[in-house]
């Protein structure tokens, strides 16, 4: 572990200012990856993955035991190579830069792209939708869209038809309250709400569980942070209320773009 800490803290030395800037960013990215990864397993996996980049095995045989979504070579394969100095033939930081760049291009960019566009179905589907649904044979009735509408409704019920941040009410519910003559709390606003997925719905392969090629690396990194998370969200499970919260549309978009997050308050 001490070995990896040294590597992460080593200053970047290069005469090319623009390259140095790029390297510094990759270096910072990996350092923060280790610092902010979920504790214990997540952090250990980040260190293992960085070491694996610095000390690559001559063949891919070390990966044969690993799961498809967790292709980090075991420490028993990495450490002996690291100890005897079998580091990457290119300078160490070049290897780290490759690692950082891969993370940026194949993890963060698609994650933000998918997060921003994951759209929940309309809270009040058109009457035509339900007419159409009633004509569908029972064995085909549960479509993916159907499932998401139901998940959205569950999430809305749990969160009281409100944005969890602004407290704004869904306009449909507000109207219902007004028509029923209910006392509406002073200062309550309305806003178009969406059920926002915590882990983007679009990352998943849907019911058939076929994950798009470009999203495989995203899942690999999420697995690196939290082993087993893919199974938790496999197929329709990604639409579970545990993976959703009601948000104002603007906030939903910004949540998907990782512009804000929720920090757990210690008990």
């Amino acid at each position, binding site marked *: 572990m001490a070995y990896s800490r040294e590597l992460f803290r080593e200053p970047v030395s290069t005469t090319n200012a623009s390259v140095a800037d790029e390297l510094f*960013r990759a270096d910072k*990215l990996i350092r*923060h*990856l280790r*610092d*902010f*990864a*979920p504790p214990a397993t997540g952090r250990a996996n980040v260190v293992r993955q960085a070491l694996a980049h610095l000390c690559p095995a001559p063949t891919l045989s070390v990966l044969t035991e690993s799961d498809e979504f967790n292709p980090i070579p075991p420490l028993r394969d990495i450490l002996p190579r690291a100890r005897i100095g079998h580091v990457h033939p290119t300078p160490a930081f070049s290897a780290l830069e490759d690692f950082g760049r891969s993370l*940026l291009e194949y993890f*963060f*960019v698609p*994650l933000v792209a998918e997060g*921003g566009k994951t759209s929940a179905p309309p809270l009040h589907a058109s009457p035509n939708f339900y007419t159409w649904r009633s004509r569908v044979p029972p064995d085909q009735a549960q479509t993916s869209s159907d499932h998401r509408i139901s998940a959205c409704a*569950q*999430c809305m*019920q*749990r*969160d*009281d*038809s*409100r944005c*969890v*941040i602004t*407290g704004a009410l869904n306009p449909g*519910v507000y109207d*219902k*309250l007004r028509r*029923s*003559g*209910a*006392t*509406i*709390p002073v200062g309550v606003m309305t806003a178009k709400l969406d059920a926002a997925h*915590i*882990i983007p719905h679009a990352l998943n392969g849907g019911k058939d569980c076929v994950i798009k090629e470009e999203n495989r690396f995203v899942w690999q990194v*999420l697995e690196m*942070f*939290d082993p087993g*998370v893919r199974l*938790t*969200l496999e197929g329709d499970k990604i639409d579970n*209320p*545990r*993976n*959703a*919260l009601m948000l*104002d549309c*603007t*906030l939903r978009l*910004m*949540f998907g773009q*990782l*512009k*804000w*997050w*929720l*920090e*757990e*308050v210690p*008990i």
Partner: protein
Amino acid sequence: MVARGSADIVHIPLLIKRSSSYQGMEDTYQPRTARSLPPSQAANHLTESGKYITFVARGGFEVPDPRLLRLPAACAKILDMSGAADYVDRLHFDAEELRQEHTLREDGSSNL
């Protein structure tokens, strides 16, 4: 301050305001923002001081999984602190510009 008279209406406010030394109940979170958060009315709610959110499992539906909430939180912090958020924003801005350029106008014309 509670609305009554309908079956599916608001009963318990989600937002709880406490002092900054507030120690949370279970499933309590505090919103945090990245430096690149664009200003907006909705975003102002995120930066209000002393804002806490406690999820309650109403209707028997489970609260958001803390394990899942930790993942975007970690990713957002990594992007924000490393400065990589600017790079990602620039990429998406360029992609959006490209998309708009290549989109047909109502009259069928385009910039191509």
